[in-house]
């Protein structure tokens, strides 16, 4: 615990502080800061003894990234701060959306009040995580992610009103928790202040909803980029406004309602345990107060037009107090607000290793945390050396760096040991890492030498500094490489557990002896942090802000260069890294000179070099497993897209205060009131990129019958198609009925929603009813139609009853389903052919007709050579297409077609049978010809037929024919292929390329994508895809909420299934071709003839036949024979499969083929 505290960055400032006391020219400002802090005097003395905090901290689990902070002290870095500076001035009570927290305690955040973004000191703030506000805060986070983090797809995401559900549900939750849900509620009527803020909150909300609607309209048109950007910004600001308003509401509520309740509950001693220090650094708070008596006078300097800070403060404290009582009904939360807050400011420094100890001991996790820890230390190391710090501090940091590196290497070592194959790469990476580290230590030692000389301010020569930076940079790079290799190895050998105590001693203890004294000293002596931070403005150890143009450097730990705060505020657009050596007093004078001389070499190379190598890597790895490690340095949200812009002060959004109109029109509020009151399960849905990925049944049903927007066609058809996979028909019906019921609480939405529910029932009965599965739900539906539905929508009830009657009477769906009911939109692109266009006439002359007639009378035998390839291809296509178009979607669900007995997938089965038969027919027609020349002619003919199939977009037949020509028994006929013309071979090669199985049928898929029906795709790819979607995706997903986890339906899996099926259905359009019944009859006869032998024996017969036609070369067959003799069990084991090509003559089935010796 000590070690944790030691690393609070702002606390590290102790050393340089003494220097600063002398710089009197800043005293004005300083006193200003003192004064702002001084307002805490008015705070109710909620701060208890520090001891208690410590107890709590001990229990504090792994640090959590808090998305929201609330300023506890005002922060005005340098007088008139324009919004173009990168620091973010704060007023007490401000709410900040945090994007990332730097190792040094500074956070990159957006002030909700103004929409400005910048750096702010975390120790001025506390985590804002009040239970009633949580859903609303989460909604805003999501909102921000979609708008700012979305990569261009934002337009699509706003296609419906789903995005608005979050804020609406959030506000609703807040009002519900505060018992102010309706205007008539007791509290609202009793407290006027509460009523007013509630009203304002609702009007903010309705304003946001209106903007969203406007956005939809704009987006549906063809908006310019600027326009879209502008509206998005406006929406974001409005969302911010809602949150700030919500916070105010909660403050007021706490003051008016919570306080009295708390007082009422005060009798019990229970609250003492909740009375946690409200201030960030409460340990030093009281002492600090005594130290700074002058703060009272300068308080007047504060010029804020908002409500007075004292009020805010008291409200905030109040809220802390009273919300506790609110949370009484929650399970007790061991993590108190302040304990969490501390973890925020601590977690960036060396919390890595310490957190790793509490974390599970999975190697991958340990790897990540130790790496983070190391980088964190190294970051502050690099930062440190650039400032004129005392050598002891540098020694401590160096030592920490080595220790944390040791921890990291320990883990890597463990990984190595577990890796049985001893990855060379990892070994190497580790070795070079060790080398780099020793380089670093040497470099550091070199630097120290002059530092021991007394009274030498300019101890670090630029060259040596550079050397050190380089060494550290190499170290970072090597560590990154090492981590990457270790991860790779882990991926191969699988994750594993490590002993928990592995690095407990190693990196925890040593640093703590080193620095315990200074810290303790510091605590006793120094004023509290609020004083500290401003004072550090003039001293090097201030948290660093690096090159503003490279966003990634912000998120990395390494980019910890000591840019001076004042430098930044005076140079708003500065991308410079003022480096080391700058004496505090001489800073401003040397600044400009320095900039010119050193900017290019030091600043640039450092800032950019490291960023691109080490840190960007970390950043990525963090976002990727941030959920696992829970230690991620940045929030998991995408923050990069516009950091550069916003930090340059070009955050050009209209300021909130001017853009948001405070309209409180009555009718808007009515609507919002209604929105708020809607009961919803929207929080049980999982979204990703605007699509529903999962959800509970009731939430999905709610989505299905949403009233604000027409449900997505794909969503609805997925539901109809797949609901039986995740709910029984009865459950589905009941959930629909429940939706019908509870929407009654929301009068304005009840109408449309109930109609939708009815329509879903209707669609189900009309065209998606499956008698085998759904009949159990019929009774329930009838009852529902008779009672609830009839009561509300009499005509609808009657019609549903009629439908139910019909369904029970008729055997199939009442309304025959459109073949392409799923892909309606797709069918529209089918080639339009006027119905009067004549069908192409069959290419059959008199001769062919006569032949067919003779065949019918058993007077002649005919072969494929007698017919035109195109006509054969056409007839094959007609035959296949008929089966293909008959495939029902339910045949494709749940690998139905693979069921061994009682499979419903008759048509899918028929497809595979036909395809197999066709293959056999090809082989048969070739193999039962004695002369190689004839065989070659037949091959040529089949290749022609296949080409014609391709012209007809009949990939299924194409596949079957090519498969067959590829069969070993055909392809081994060397003599035959020698006669086949080069032209035919080239054509065959081309066709082979199209149906190539490699790269997951890349060629075939590519072609199908662009096809317009009619087309016969190869069904096999769909079947494989469906199988893998089914087996490769879980049926449930875990939805994590703040309180619990719940398993919800993995709707994404079903959407994927439905998408594949709809892709198949897209092609279920019959060909416009003329059927020739005689030819069909002959083909059918041929196909059945080759099938009669049964699959397995057929192939074996073919193979024997092939060997007879062109026997193996002697030597080859001899070895085969021999090896088989030497290996008899395999043959005996499976007598039925005996592979004995000499025995073929004994088989009576083989037709008149002359035997040969």
């Amino acid at each position, binding site marked *: 615990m000590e070690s944790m505290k030691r690393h609070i960055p702002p606390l590290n400032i102790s050393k340089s502080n003494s220097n600063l006391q002398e710089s009197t020219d800043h005293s004005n400002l300083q006193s200003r800061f003192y004064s702002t802090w001084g307002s805490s005097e008015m705070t109710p003395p909620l701060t208890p003894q520090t001891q208690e905090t410590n107890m709590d901290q001990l229990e504090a689990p792994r640090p959590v990234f808090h998305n929201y902070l609330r300023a506890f002290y005002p922060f005005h870095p340098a007088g008139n701060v324009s919004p173009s500076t990168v620091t973010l001035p704060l007023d007490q009570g401000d709410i900040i959306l945090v994007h990332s927290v730097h190792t040094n305690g500074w956070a990159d955040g957006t002030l909700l009040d103004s929409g400005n973004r910048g750096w702010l000191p975390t120790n001025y703030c506390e985590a804002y995580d009040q239970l009633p506000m949580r859903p609303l805060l989460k909604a805003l986070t999501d909102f921000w992610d979609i708008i700012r983090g979305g990569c261009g797809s934002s337009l699509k995401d706003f296609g419906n009103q789903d995005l608005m559900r979050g804020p609406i549900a959030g506000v609703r939750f807040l009002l519900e928790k505060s018992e102010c849900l309706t205007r008539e509620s007791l509290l609202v009527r009793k407290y006027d202040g509460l009523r007013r803020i509630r009203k304002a909150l609702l009007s903010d909300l309705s304003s946001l909803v209106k903007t969203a609607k406007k956005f939809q309209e704009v987006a549906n048109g063809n908006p310019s980029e600027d326009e879209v950007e502008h509206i998005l910004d406006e929406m974001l600001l409005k969302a911010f406004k809602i949150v700030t308003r919500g916070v105010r509401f909660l403050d007021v509520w706490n003051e008016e309602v919570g306080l009295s309740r708390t007082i009422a509950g005060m009798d019990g001693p229970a609250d003492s345990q909740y009375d946690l220090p409200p201030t960030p650094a409460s340990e030093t708070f009281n002492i600090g107060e005594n130290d700074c008596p002058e703060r009272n006078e300068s308080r007047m300097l504060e010029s804020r037009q908002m409500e007075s800070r004292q009020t805010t403060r008291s409200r905030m404290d109040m809220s802390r107090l009273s919300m506790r009582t609110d949370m009484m009904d929650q399970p007790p939360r061991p993590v108190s607000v302040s304990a969490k807050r501390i973890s925020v400011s601590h977690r960036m420094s060396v919390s890595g290793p310490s957190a790793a100890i509490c974390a599970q001991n999975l190697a991958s996790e340990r790897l990540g945390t130790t790496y983070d820890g190391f980088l964190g230390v190294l970051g502050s190391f690099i930062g440190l050396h650039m400032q004129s710090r005392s050598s002891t501090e540098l020694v401590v940091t160096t030592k920490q760096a080595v220790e944390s590196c040791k921890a990291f290497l320990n883990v890597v070592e463990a990984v190595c040991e577990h890796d049985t194959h*001893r*990855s*060379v*790469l990892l*070994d*190497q990476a580790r070795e070079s890492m060790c080398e780099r580290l020793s380089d670093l230590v040497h470099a550091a030692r070199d630097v120290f030498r002059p530092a021991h000389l007394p009274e030498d301010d300019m101890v670090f020569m630029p060259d040596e500094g550079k050397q050190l930076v380089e060494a550290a940079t190499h170290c970072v790079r090597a560590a990154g490489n090492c981590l990457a290799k270790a991860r790779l190895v882990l*991926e*191969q050998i*699988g994750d594993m557990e490590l002993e928990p105590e592995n690095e407990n001693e190693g990196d925890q203890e040593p640093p703590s002896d080193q620095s315990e004294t200074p810290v303790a000293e510091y605590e006793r002596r120094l004023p509290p942090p609020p004083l500290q931070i401003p004072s550090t403005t003039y001293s090097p150890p201030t948290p660093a802000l690096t090159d503003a143009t490279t966003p990634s450097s912000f998120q990395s730990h390494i980019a910890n260069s000591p840019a001076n705060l004042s430098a930044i505020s005076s140079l708003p657009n500065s991308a410079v890294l003022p480096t080391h050596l700058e004496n505090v007093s001489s800073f401003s004078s040397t600044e400009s000179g320095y900039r010119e001389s050193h900017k290019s070499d030091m600043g640039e190379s450092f800032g950019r070099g490291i960023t691109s190598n080490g840190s960007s890597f970390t950043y990525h790895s963090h976002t*990727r*497993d941030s959920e696992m490690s829970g230690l991620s340095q940045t929030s998991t949200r995408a923050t990069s897209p516009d950091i550069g812009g916003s930090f340059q002060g070009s955050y050009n959004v209209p300021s909130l205060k001017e853009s948001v109109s405070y309209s409180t029109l009555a009718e808007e509020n009515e609507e919002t009131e209604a929105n708020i009151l809607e009961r919803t399960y929207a929080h049980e849905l999982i979204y990703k990129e605007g699509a529903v*990925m999962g959800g509970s049944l009731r939430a999905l049903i709610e989505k299905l019958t949403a009233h604000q927007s027409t449900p997505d066609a794909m969503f609805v058809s997925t539901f109809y198609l797949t609901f039986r996979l995740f709910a029984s028909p009865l459950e589905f019906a009941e959930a629909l009925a429940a939706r019908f019921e509870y929407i009654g609480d929301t009068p304005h939405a009840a109408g449309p929603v109930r109609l939708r529910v009815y329509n879903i029932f209707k669609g189900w009965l009309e065209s998606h009813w499956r008698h085998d599965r759904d009949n159990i739900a019929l009774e329930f539906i009838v009852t529902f139609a008779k009672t609830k539905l009839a009561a509300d929508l009499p005509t609808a009830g009657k019609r549903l009853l009629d439908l139910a009657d019909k369904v029970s009477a008729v055997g199939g769906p009442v309304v025959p389903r459109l073949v392409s009911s799923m892909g309606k939109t797709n069918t529209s692109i089918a080639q339009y052919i006027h119905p009067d266009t004549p069908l192409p006439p069959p290419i059959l002359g008199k001769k062919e007709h006569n032949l067919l007639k003779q065949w019918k009378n058993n007077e002649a035998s005919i072969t494929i050579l007698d017919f035109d390839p195109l006509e054969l291809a056409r007839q094959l296509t007609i035959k296949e297409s008929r089966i293909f178009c008959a495939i029902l979607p339910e045949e494709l669900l749940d*690998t139905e*077609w*693979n069921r*061994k007995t009682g499979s419903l997938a008759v048509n899918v*089965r028929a497809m*595979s*049978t036909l*395809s*197999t038969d066709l293959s056999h027919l090809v082989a048969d027609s070739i193999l039962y010809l004695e002369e190689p020349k004839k065989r070659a002619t037949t091959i040529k003919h089949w290749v022609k037929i296949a080409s014609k199939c391709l012209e007809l977009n009949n990939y299924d037949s194409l*596949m079957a024919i*090519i*498969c*067959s020509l*590829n*069969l*070993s028994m055909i392809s*081994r006929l060397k003599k035959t292929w020698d006669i086949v013309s080069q032209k035919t071979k080239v054509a065959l090669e081309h066709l082979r390329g199209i149906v190539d*199985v*490699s*790269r*997951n049928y*890349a060629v075939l*898929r590519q072609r199908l994508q662009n096809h317009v029906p009619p087309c016969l795709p190869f069904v*096999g790819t769909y*079947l*494989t*895809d469906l*199988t*893998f*979607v089914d*087996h*490769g*995706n*879980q049926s449930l*997903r875990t939805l994590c909420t703040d309180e619990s986890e719940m398993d919800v339906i993995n709707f*994404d899996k079903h959407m*994927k299934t439905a998408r594949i099926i709809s892709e198949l259905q897209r092609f279920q359009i019959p060909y416009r071709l003329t059927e020739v019944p005689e030819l069909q009859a002959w083909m059918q006869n041929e196909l059945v003839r080759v099938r009669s032998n049964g699959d*397995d024996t057929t*192939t074996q017969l073919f*193979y024997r036949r092939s060997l007879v036609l062109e026997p193996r070369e002697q030597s*080859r067959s001899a070895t085969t024979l021999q*090896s088989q003799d030497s290996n008899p*069990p*395999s043959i005996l*084991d*499976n007598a039925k*499969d005996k*592979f004995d090509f000499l025995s073929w003559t004994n088989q009576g089935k083989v037709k008149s083929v002359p035997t040969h010796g």
Partner: protein
Amino acid sequence: MPRSNGESFLLDANITLLCWELVFLCAITGGVGKSCLTAQFVQNVWIESYDPTIEDSYRKQIEVDGRQCILEILDTAGTEQFTAMRELYMKQGQGFLLVFSITSMSSLNELSELREQIMRIKDDENVPIVIVGNKSDLEEDRAVPRARAFGLSQNWGNAPYYETSARRRANVNEVFIDLCRQIIRKDSEGSRSSSDPSRKREGPNRHDRKRDNRRPRKRGPCVIL
């Protein structure tokens, strides 16, 4: 391991030494869980949504004895009834995983037929093969005694036999790595002189392989797709 060796590999890796290997999974009937095996192997653990329709869905890079190999897996899952298709796959495959379910004796018996077909098509007695008894998590439903499977393995020229559980992700990678190793070895033997047909006995969970044949040299023709 000697430094130079590792470095030369590094060099190779940068240039070309990513070799594509085609692995073919076969079973005659569905329901032995081979698609789960493939899905488990191909997708990383943290991918929460698996899309089999994209080109890389069946591809994975693994390291086998210091070589980076890209395995492309051909899995007939779902198309078992298209018997004519099987040969098309088999022709392309360089190594074969014959998967059966330990809960079904018939699924084991069917492997013989598959093996013969493979031998026939590849016209080769020493095609890299690994026999896989899947669903080892369903021990209580075991219908195929281990001895029986081992017997088969011995009869088939000591083809390695593994028992896997796709559900528990047990032995999944091992199976593919073993097969890949066989393919690589066969390649190098083939380009030398394939005079030594006797294969080393390879039992399950074998981790102590010698690394004698790991000298860096140009690979024989590898199937680049």
